[in-house]
């Protein structure tokens, strides 16, 4: 038996009347943590709901572990944990009852279900609030309960839609650790989030959606290389910047230099690696106190891509 990818979408499209939710998405995901990014309304939640068979594709299909998803694909959910992006819960339910109910739907009842629910609560540090009604919890607590229900049976595939939204820094950090651990033991996590620096701290593999279409997929470095059209910029702070500016221009490592109001030097280059090597070399003689390559992080790449294609 050949092993199927955890997630495979083929030509996946969905329209809501005349509004386009997602158009012609083809992706395949094996394992590890993948960040699902995109501006508001770019189709992330639509994708998450179609992955879980809650809404039907207008065209194309979704396969999880090689099984085509639809309203009758419940057996596949043994291997999947899903946390929705909306702040929804059942009315008048306590946290523990909610988890017990969902454990029961997986065929586990009685004391076993309670034990499982308590373990899941433990994982998100919510044991103390187990008996609290979900409507009386703060948004961050409900987020943790939502993550707990996805973790109930330690599934192979975790689909987390904006789980960090509304969480406090302590919970964020522990959730990020949880996601990282899940990947190290061979699981797959699809993590949709707006908080880019958090996504960046667990993974450099991303899927970027925009206007319902796939804008970029892969590792950050690769994506940055692919964009490659724009020159890179290096920002330096130090004492002998004018001589460095002249130096890199004369060695033709820079296409342009400029000084900011603060006195920092900006070097534009199309040969980043050579420039970095050269700078490291000059640096030993002193004169450079700090420097940084711009557009290197996820946020910069995100803005570059989304900005490029939306205007």
């Amino acid at each position, binding site marked *: 038996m050949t092993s199927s990818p955890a997630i495979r979408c083929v030509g996946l499209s969905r329209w809501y009347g005349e509004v386009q939710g997602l158009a012609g998405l083809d992706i395949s995901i094996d394992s590890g943590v993948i960040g699902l990014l995109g501006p*508001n309304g770019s189709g992330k939640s639509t994708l998450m709901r179609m992955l879980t068979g809650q809404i039907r594709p207008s065209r194309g299909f979704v396969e999880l572990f090689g099984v085509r998803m639809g309203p009758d694909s419940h057996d596949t959910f043994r291997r999947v944990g899903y946390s929705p992006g909306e702040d929804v819960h059942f009315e008048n339910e306590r946290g523990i009852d909610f988890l017990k109910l969902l454990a029961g739907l997986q065929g586990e009842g009685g004391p076993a279900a309670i034990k499982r629910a308590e373990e899941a609560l433990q994982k998100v540090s919510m044991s103390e609030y187990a008996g609290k009604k979900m409507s009386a919890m703060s*948004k961050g607590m409900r987020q943790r309960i939502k993550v707990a229900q996805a973790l109930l049976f330690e599934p192979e595939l975790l689909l987390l839609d904006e789980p960090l939204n509304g969480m406090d820094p302590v919970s964020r950090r522990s959730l990020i650790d949880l996601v990282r651990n899940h990947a190290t033991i061979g699981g797959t996590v699809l993590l949709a989030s707006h908080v880019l620096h958090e996504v960046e701290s667990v993974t450099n593999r991303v899927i970027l959606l925009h206007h319902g279409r796939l804008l970029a997929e892969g590792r950050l470095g690769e994506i940055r290389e692919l964009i490659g059209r724009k020159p890179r910029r290096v920002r330096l702070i130090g004492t002998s910047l004018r001589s460095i500016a002249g130096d890199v221009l004369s060695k033709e490592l820079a296409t342009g230099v400029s000084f900011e109001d603060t006195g920092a030097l900006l070097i534009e280059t199309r040969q980043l690696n050579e420039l*970095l090597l050269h*700078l490291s070399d000059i640096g030993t003689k002193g004169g450079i106190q700090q420097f940084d390559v711009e557009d290197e992080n996820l946020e910069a790449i995100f803005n570059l891509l989304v900005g490029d294609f939306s205007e």
Partner: protein
Amino acid sequence: MSETKPVLDLDALTVRYGSFQALTGITATFQGGSLALLGPNGAGKSTMLRSILGLVPPASGQALLFGKDTSQKSATLRGRIGYMPERDCWVGGMSGVAGLAHLAEVCGFPREDAMLRAHDLLHFVGLGEERYRDVSSFSVGMRQRYKLASALVHDPDVLFLDEPTNGLDPRGRAYMLDAIDRIRQEHGVHIILASHLLPDVERLCDQVWVLNRGHLKAADSVANLTAAARGAKRVRLAARDDVAAFSEQARSAGIQVEPGKHDDELLLTNPDGVIESEQVFALAAQSKISLSGLQPAARSLEDAFLEALADTTF
């Protein structure tokens, strides 16, 4: 604004809901500028905002806003506060601009001025094109901007923001932070921000109160909390270089190496003193790699925050 009184002065403020003590004897003063309220879920941030709004009476102690007790004549005092709640909220049944003007009228603005201001503010928050639409058709990001406009429409002297960037995409977030920053810098409106996103706090605020379970754990300036660890450096290595070789080289020079936030990032500290930039470049040259970044390692607000909560268990 020539206020001589502090913007906010809490004097042993205690708030109870039934038997549950939401705030316990909080004494602190906020002279003005921008203040962040930090704390895990359920720390008492929202309760504090509500009691300053005069919506929750204190069990004991008092809260003074611009020198006036918030539990007395709170209605007039609320006219000086712009409150942006965490949840979506708007007055429905009318267009966006009409709802906004209506809220200004509730604060005593004459009809014409209210309309004028509502239009201007919607342009300011970037919803000019959507002015006449119904707010219920707005997206998450638009609603968040609309909430900011609602909080500003009656020209408050102090702005309470509860998670203003929640659910916003990166560009929406940058826009929101920029707008708030301009109001603070250019118009002297004081800011009190409750947020879980510490980068936002670092961007906007100069003072921080850390709350946990109704107690004030720390009250300090952001600058003090994030003061650079002495002489430490943050180093980024070009993608294809060997991190291990560099670390080895650095350790042999008596420098402590810790992994940074990213794969290609290292944190260097010298227990005996300062690390000079030249020294780092020299290490790079010795291990035949090129650096792609070198910066003094500021302590992040996140570290400071977690440290302030360190004595509590979760």
